[in-house]
């Protein structure tokens, strides 16, 4: 093997090793920083991992928004039509947040299945709700109907 070919082989090996390392790192980091979406039903069934950062959402239940009188702590409930999820948050709610409207909250679920949200996002558009929420609602309705049919 002459010197030039040896050099080239080294370069190729280097590229392969670096590429493998980089893709491994990217995959690992994606795994660490990806936030899954859960529906209130899924959380009620205990399918959401405890203490892992995730997103959840649904329709804000009318009259469920309660505020602390001394701070910005607040609590509200979201529903997908079947189950209700309690969300606790401290901070300012987005402009488009409203009771009876869709909202998504990001945070961690605690032992009591309450979502401790670090961020609350309302729908980003006046007219349309986030697709995750709309989909989760019709899925929940379907589940509910199937269970009802099963018990009859």
């Amino acid at each position: 093997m002459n010197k030039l070919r040896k050099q080239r082989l080294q370069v190729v090996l280097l590229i392969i090793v670096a590429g493998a390392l980089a893709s491994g790192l990217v995959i690992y980091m994606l795994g660490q920083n990806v936030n899954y979406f859960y529906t209130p039903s899924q959380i009620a069934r205990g399918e959401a991992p405890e203490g892992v950062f995730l997103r959840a959402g649904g329709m804000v239940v009318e009259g469920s928004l309660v505020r602390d009188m001394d701070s910005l702590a607040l609590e509200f409930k979201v529903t997908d039509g079947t189950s209700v999820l309690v969300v606790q948050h401290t901070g300012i709610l987005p402009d488009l947040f409203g009771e009876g409207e869709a909202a998504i909250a990001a945070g961690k679920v605690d032992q009591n299945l309450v979502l401790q949200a670090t961020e609350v996002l309302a729908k980003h558009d006046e007219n349309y709700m986030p697709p995750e929420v709309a989909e989760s609602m019709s899925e929940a309705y379907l589940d509910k109907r199937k269970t009802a049919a099963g018990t009859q």
Partner: protein
Amino acid sequence: MKVVGGLFLNRLALFLPLVLFAALTIVLLLGLDKDPSELPSVLVGEPFPSFSLPALHDADKTLDERDVIGEVVLVNIWATWCFACRIEHAMLNQLAEQGVKVIGLNYKDNREAAITWLNERGDPYAFSVFDERGRLGIDLGVYGAPETYLLDATGTIRHRRVGVVDDRVWNNEFRDLYAQLIAVQR
């Protein structure tokens, strides 16, 4: 020979971007299928959800799913706050004139404003259900207004359109299916 082999490998390396791009294209193509506006409701093929809500024009009259079942109908979700509904309205009037039965679901709206709106622009709806709180919307998984469902005579949802129904959408997505369902009904 060595040189030729080297060149061949080099040439092969130049194909790498093309291969990567092809993979990307496949993902994008599959992703397009997942386009939320294209994704049919999980309710397609399912019976229309049961409900019990007042009529728009008569607050004392209660409507339920039985009022929707029995004929091939379009259920159109609309509101006065929804601008696209204004554009869609002319199309719905036209369909109603052609004899298509359209049922309105007035969604998260104000009753008086909605009635005035229909008086001004014409009322294509056989009747309108007044869903002030969006309850039926929850079960249907409504994204927003406008949205249109095609129901067969048994009350099963056969097609769903998120967004405006105009000439093109009607011709592409609804017309044939509608004609077919009508034929079955007779």
